């Protein structure tokens, strides 16, 4: 341990200017966040990019101070203990990469008024994630001492980092954490193996193959994990299948009002109303994904995957029933061929039952007020007083969150909720902000209170249904009519 500290001190001396820059960038991230109106619309992307580049450079420099590859390095003929050397490098990352971000997070949490105790899991988990994400950088940096090669590797690592940290708000975002977590775990396992091999016995050729394999596996899992498998895993993890035993799904009637949807020519937009009956009391069904198979009378079929049915909106609400409208984009050749003819529709609806609602009425002002589940909610008088903003530390909770303004209907902050059980995402800015608008119900200028309703996911379910004699032209998109404003996510 003494040798590790000795090397650590040397590395600090060697990289003191770079360290100063990285710490300044971390401070700039915090300052940029805090300068904004409660952080909304004020993502510190520029200092984050500089911080990221600075960290990548710092790690490269740190590793190359005792480069693993090559046969001319000074240190390899000196009595270094590989465990001490590796420990020194990892300690350096903890102190000069993690610690500044930890302090920045603490400053943001304290100044924004988030309850510190309930934020501790997120705070610690974000540090674990940050450290784990540094490992691939360290591992890649050990694979070559040639600077251009290092830059390529770091750029690849940066790409993976950006891909895996980007906010996922698609219809499959609820289960995207599964593929992200598996890919991340594969990448980290690869990095740990490489670090062990490189620092213990400098097996660079094997390590390079290992790195290529690890990156390929991670990329494959991230990009090609079948979403039905992800939903099946999520459903298995929730383990509450029995809760939805009373639910019945069927194709509903043609909707009278269709919400706004961008046309994706030359695809044909089909609006499928789905009737959900028998929802258990105290719960509500929220759609996650829909997969449709259409079969013509002559046996020709077309598949509409979840990616083709990206707009799922829950319509009417009652105690035990809901109507979900799905907009799917179909192949025009199939549509034109089957125009006016009956087809058989087979579909699988993936949905989540939410329940155990908690609500809290808080004053609606520009000053954020604490709401359930660690949320803080406020409005922005300058922009639109009927908009409600809520923000959460480290990640948006895996909950359905509504805002009720006076007598207006509840507005969901987003239907896209990540079901990840982890308390934090990997972000330098620890605050995630979303908004809900009461615009559709008309502005309530006199309302000064808002009720925040939070429901937790109870079960992730899949129901298959079939309808025969379906005429597609009845469900085709007739014309653009503006419905409720689309939901949005702000980071």
């Amino acid at each position, binding site marked *: 341990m003494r*040798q590790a500290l000795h090397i650590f001190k040397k590395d600090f001396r060697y990289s003191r200017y770079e360290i100063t820059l990285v710490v300044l960038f971390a401070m700039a991230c915090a300052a940029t966040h805090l300068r904004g109106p409660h952080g909304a619309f004020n993502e510190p992307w520029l200092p984050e990019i500089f911080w990221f580049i600075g960290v990548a450079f710092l790690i490269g420099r740190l590793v190359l101070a005792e480069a693993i590859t090559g046969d*001319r*390095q000074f240190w*390899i*003929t*000196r*009595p*270094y203990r590989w465990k001490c050397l590796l420990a020194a490098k990892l300690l350096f990352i903890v102190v000069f990469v993690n610690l500044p971000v930890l302090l920045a997070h603490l400053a943001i949490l304290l100044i924004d008024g988030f309850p510190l105790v309930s934020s501790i899991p997120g705070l610690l988990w974000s540090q674990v994630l940050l450290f784990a994400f540094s490992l691939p950088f360290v591992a890649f940096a050990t694979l070559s001492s040639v600077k251009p090669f290092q830059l390529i590797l770091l750029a690849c690592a940066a790409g993976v980092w950006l891909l895996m940290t980007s906010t996922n708000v698609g219809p499959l975002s609820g289960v995207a954490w599964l593929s992200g977590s598996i890919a991340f775990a594969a990448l980290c396992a690869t990095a740990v193996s490489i670090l062990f091999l490189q620092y213990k016995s400098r097996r660079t050729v094997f390590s390079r193959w290992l790195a290529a394999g690890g990156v390929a596996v991670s990329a494959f899992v991230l990009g090609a994990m079948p979403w039905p498998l992800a939903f099946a895993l999520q459903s298995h993890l929730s383990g509450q299948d029995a809760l939805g035993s009373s639910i019945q799904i069927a194709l509903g009637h043609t909707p009278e009002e269709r919400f706004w949807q961008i046309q994706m020519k030359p695809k044909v937009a089909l609006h499928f109303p789905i009737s959900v009956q028998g929802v258990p009391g105290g719960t509500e069904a929220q759609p996650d994904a829909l997969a449709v198979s259409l079969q013509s009378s002559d046996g020709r079929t077309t598949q509409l995957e979840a990616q083709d049915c990206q707009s799922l909106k829950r319509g009417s609400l009652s105690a035990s029933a809901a109507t979900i409208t799905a907009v799917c984009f179909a192949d025009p050749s199939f549509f034109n061929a089957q125009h006016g003819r009956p087809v058989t529709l087979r579909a699988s609806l993936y949905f989540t039952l939410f329940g155990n609602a908690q609500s809290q009425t808080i004053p609606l002002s520009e000053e954020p007020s604490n709401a359930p589940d660690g949320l803080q909610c406020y409005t922005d008088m300058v922009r639109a007083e009927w908009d409600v903003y809520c923000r959460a530390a480290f990640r948006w909770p895996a909950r359905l969150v509504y805002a009720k303004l006076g007598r207006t209907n509840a507005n969901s902050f987003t239907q896209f909720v990540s079901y990840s059980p982890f308390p934090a995402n990997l972000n330098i800015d620890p605050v995630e902000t979303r908004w809900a608008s009461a615009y559709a119900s008309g502005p309530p200028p006199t309302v000064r209170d808002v009720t925040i309703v939070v429901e937790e996911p109870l079960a992730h379910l899949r129901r298959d249904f079939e309808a025969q004699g379906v005429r597609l032209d009845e469900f085709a998109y007739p014309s653009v009519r503006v419905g409720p404003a689309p939901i949005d996510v702000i980071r």
Partner: protein
Amino acid sequence: MSDIVSAIDLVKRFRDAPVLDGLNLTVPEGSVFGLAGPNGAGKTTTIKILMNILRPSSGHAEVLGVDSRALGPEALANIGYVSENQDLPEWMTVEYMLAYLKPFYPAWDEERARRLVRQFDLPLDRQLRHLSRGMRMKIALASSLAYRPRLLIMDEPFSGLDPLVREDLIDGLLESAGETTILISSHDLGEIESFASHIGYLDRGRLQFSEEMTSLTARFREVEVVVDSPPLVPLDRPWPAHWLRPETAPALVRFVETHFDPERTAADIRQLFGDVRSISAHPMPLRAIFVTLARARSKAA
């Protein structure tokens, strides 16, 4: 004397091209072993294998009784390494480098380090990147001698250095020669001739011979034989195998005796030539010995 370094049947191939081809080498403890040979003979590869910088394709080497592939911090704390091919931490000052290395070596002798700095006239406050090549070799040597290693391995340490720096380094080396075994490689025999106690000659990946310097220089003689004219040179009879580079001229025969013994050599000469007018045997410089051997081998090949 036990062996501090030994290599048995070492083979090293780079992309199927053999650089070492069954090398066998032993370095006795307490010796100053000069590993000589032409460029590309495999000297640096041998040293890198001994230092666990490279792994042999096959064969086995031991350094300080440890398998070279398992050479760890404990052994490295007793080995000094100086090489013209080594990248030093150029951002460090001389003073910081010595201070940085000190905790790695339990036997670090601060007084000796200071003395070496003075002896080599090293500027303590200067970064290594601002030092001349000779100065860098000096700091490399000083930082390797300060902990009184049992073994000091030097790979072409004098290559391209001016004579003054070379003398400084040799002086520094000689001070440690009593307590430290030195293995030094060089393609320039003149560099190591003056202080090596043992010499090994490496060529085409094989050690052609390895011997104590005194024994080597004692057994090699350039012999001149003056015979009655016209000389009767028995060209149809085979010359003794230990006579190399035979040359003949009217009334003169010249050759290199590789196993010189005054009485036996004289007897061999008389047996071949009969009565001769005079025999003179001249000691040979190391360079001349190696040239003779190299030519003989290339001729044999």
